[in-house]
C-alpha cells in the first residue's frame, strides 16, 4: 500500500482522469472530493458490509402481516 501525507486542499492524481482532493480535515473527519469519469464506481466500503448484513437479516424475516383497510 502506498502511504502519502497530504494537507487540506492538496490533490492526488490517479492515472490520467481521477483527481482526489483533500477538502478539509476536521478532527477525525476528512472531507474528500473525487473527480472521476462516470464509469468509475465510487463506493464507501462500509456500505458494502452493511448491505451484506442487511440482506442476510432480511432473509430471516419473521412471519408478519400488515393491517389494511378492507371492504369486509
Amino acid at each position, binding site marked *: 500500500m502506498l502511504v502519502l501525507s497530504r494537507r487540506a486542499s492538496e490533490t492526488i492524481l490517479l492515472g490520467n482522469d481521477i483527481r482526489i482532493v483533500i477538502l478539509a480535515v476536521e478532527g477525525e473527519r476528512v472531507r474528500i472530493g473525487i473527480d472521476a469519469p*462516470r464509469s468509475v464506481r465510487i463506493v464507501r466500503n462500509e456500505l458494502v458490509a452493511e*448491505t451484506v448484513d*442487511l440482506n442476510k437479516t*432480511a432473509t430471516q424475516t419473521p412471519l408478519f402481516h400488515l393491517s389494511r383497510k378492507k371492504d369486509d
Partner: protein
Amino acid sequence: MTYQTFRFGAVECSPERVHRFPEGLPGLDHLHEFIFIHDEETEPIFWMQSTQDPQIALPVAEVFALIEDYSLDIGDDDLALLHIHDPEEVMVLVVVVIPRDVQTMTANLAAPIVIQRNERLGKQIFTADTAYSVRHPIFEAVMRVLEGGQGDAGTIPQGE
C-alpha cells in the same frame, strides 16, 4: 413451472417471469435467479424469492411508492450490464428489514435493487450519495400506501 419455497409452499410462476441477477446479491452472491411473489398480507411489501434456494426470500418494496422524491444515479457500467436505455424500463426496489416489532421496519435506501423490467435483469447497486440511510424507517410510509393516501403501490404488477 413450480418452485418450492419455504415461506409460500409450492409457487407457480412462468419461466418468463424469472429475474436474472448476473452478479447475485451482496451476501447472496451465489443466487442469480429470483421471482417476485405478492402476498396480500404483506402488501405493499412483496417478496424476492430465490428459485435456487427455497429458504431465501427477501422482503422488498418499490421505493418510489414509499419515497416519492427518491433519486438515483445509475453508473454507465450498470446501465450497460442491465441493458437500460430508457428510465421507463426501470423499477427500483429496496430491501426491507422487518423485526418482530413491525413498526421499526427499515429499508436500505443506500443500496437499491435496480430492475430492467423488459429483460428482467437486476442488480443491487451502491449509491455514492451519503444522503440515504441503510436503515431508513418506512413504517409510516407503508401505512400511508395501505391507506391509499399517496403512492402508487396499486401499480405493482401482480405475480410478476
